[in-house]
């Protein structure tokens, strides 16, 4: 359940458009009206991750020249090495205020931003990247 005041500032949800080949996921997200003057959070809804893997998700905004501008990180430790199946986190929140303003400086008139989210791995470089998913991504003013 999201507090009403967050819903009030909710920009419209977005959808996955292009899926890069490295397991990262891209979403085209509407940019809320007051990014320059208010805090902006990136909400990840219904994030599904394996229970036996730790996942670090890093979010980037793609600039006009396709440069990646770092927005922020969130992470979900695994439940147990021996666990099976997946777990779902209903809502993860990243404060992207600073990064999104940096992106806005290069994309002044843009109403939408391409957000790429990738699994940064688990600290163990030999471990395979996790299979994960997110149902929806939104930018909101809390």
């Amino acid at each position, binding site marked *: *359940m*999201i*507090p009403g005041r967050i819903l009030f500032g909710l920009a419209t949800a977005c*959808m*996955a458009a292009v*899926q890069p080949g490295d397991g990262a*996921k891209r979403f085209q997200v509407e940019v809320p009206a007051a990014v*320059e*003057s208010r*805090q902006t*959070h990136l909400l990840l*809804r*219904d994030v*599904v991750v394996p*229970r036996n893997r*730790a*996942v*670090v998700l*890093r979010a980037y905004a793609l600039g006009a020249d396709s440069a990646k501008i*770092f927005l*922020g*990180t*969130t*992470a*979900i*430790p*695994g*439940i*147990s*090495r*021996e*666990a*099976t*199946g*997946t*777990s*779902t*986190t*209903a*809502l*993860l*929140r*990243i*404060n992207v*205020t*600073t990064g999104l*303003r940096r992106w806005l400086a290069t994309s002044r008139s843009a109403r939408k931003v391409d957000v790429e989210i990738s699994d*940064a791995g*688990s*600290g*163990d*470089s030999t471990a395979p990247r996790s*299979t*994960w*998913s*997110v*149902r*929806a991504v939104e930018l909101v003013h*809390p």
Partner: protein
Amino acid sequence: MFGNENDASRRQFLQALGIGVAGMWGSELLATTPAPLDEHHQPTHTCDPPAHGAASSFIRDCRPIRPRQIADRLTPAEVTQLKAAYKAMRDLDTSDPNDPRGFRQQANVHCFFCATSDPSIQVHGTWKFFAWHRAYLYFHERILGKLIGNENFRLPFWGWDSTAFHKLPVPYVTPNDATNPLFNPTRALAPGTPLPDSDVGSATIPVIADVLSLATFAEFGGTASTSGVPEGSPHGSVHVDVGGDMGFFDTAGRDPIFYQHHGTVDKLWSDWNRAAATHTNPADPAFLNLTFNFFDENKVWRSIKASQVLDHENSLRYVYEPYRFWDIFRCFRWRPVAIGWRTTQRITLPPANRDLGLALRGDGPVRLHFREIQFPRDRTAVYDIYVSQEEAQAARGAESPGWLASVGIVLNDRENKHPVRGTANVIASVRPQLRARLMRGDTLQPYFVERSQRPASRSALPVRAADVFFSVGEMDRER
């Protein structure tokens, strides 16, 4: 109640998590999720707490207030003491595996409360997160102190909120083998390798500042059904960055760095509370009455409420600040004394308050608090607060007897997009000359002035605050 899965509540929890929601955006995993989660909820192994009776209520802690220190700043003697404490804790694993104070049993506490799908037990993902972990570390700290016979022992913390401490603390990797009670062989983060800037911040990536600027507890610490920002990162990402046991809820507590990591997470909460007057914890009884159970240093099964961990200084007896002289006393605490600020807009000694009068005459510490004092927020500036308009206009600085305190207002946006007014809490020590004025019955009307303004353009403004009150440091009777 522990160790029993409740099927109905489990189903409700899974439904609340949104299991079964159609993956309308068509990501790979949702399309191929092999089986309903219900088939996988069962814990993979047991980490139930040892047998215990009914929980005894938390009793007031009268130990001296002591600072928790950054692990890399410990003296050699303090490192020796820290290692001795963890060695004693590990030794219990073999001498008495059922002793709840043993290292494996302590790790099992996190496993039990965190590697579960039962929302009545699970302490992640909601507003339980900060309060439960604060209580967990508190009892862990007391056990370590008990095992080495030192009630003044306090857990060090990692300190990754400072860019100077992004590597694993030296005591935890020196030596980097099993002879070191602080060692864990499963870590993926190598000694000397810093945590990624993207997870803990750098000069250009303000991770910590962004966390401390979160406006409400719902954003910072979560709600009854959602987590706050820092639980995901930096908390979660540092778990994963360290890797190995730290990367999993059921084993994280087996790495001693877990407790130093969470000390830093706990410090973030403390810092967030102090960063702005509006950064308050939930007043909802549903939060305040959250009750957690732990074994204490005497193997007594204790219950502690969230409301009892909010004031870590007075209630749990530690601070993340430099050592202060009065902290050596047992049962020392600060008692607020109101002065009727709302009606007078003046500071006068309440004539009826005998304790405050005695404190001012004596040597005990007295503080003056300004709650939600209003400052301009249109630029970054330092403001000095003085006891009168004349003193503020003269602006003689901290050596002046009329000076009370300084406040720095730092904006994080040069385009001045912030509200024109903001508030801050300020605490000023009542120094001898101010004591004398108050004892004479002087009435004070505090003003503040921007420090960098030239005398010709200097403009002192009266202090506007939601409340102004004193606090008296005193010794409570030990029970």
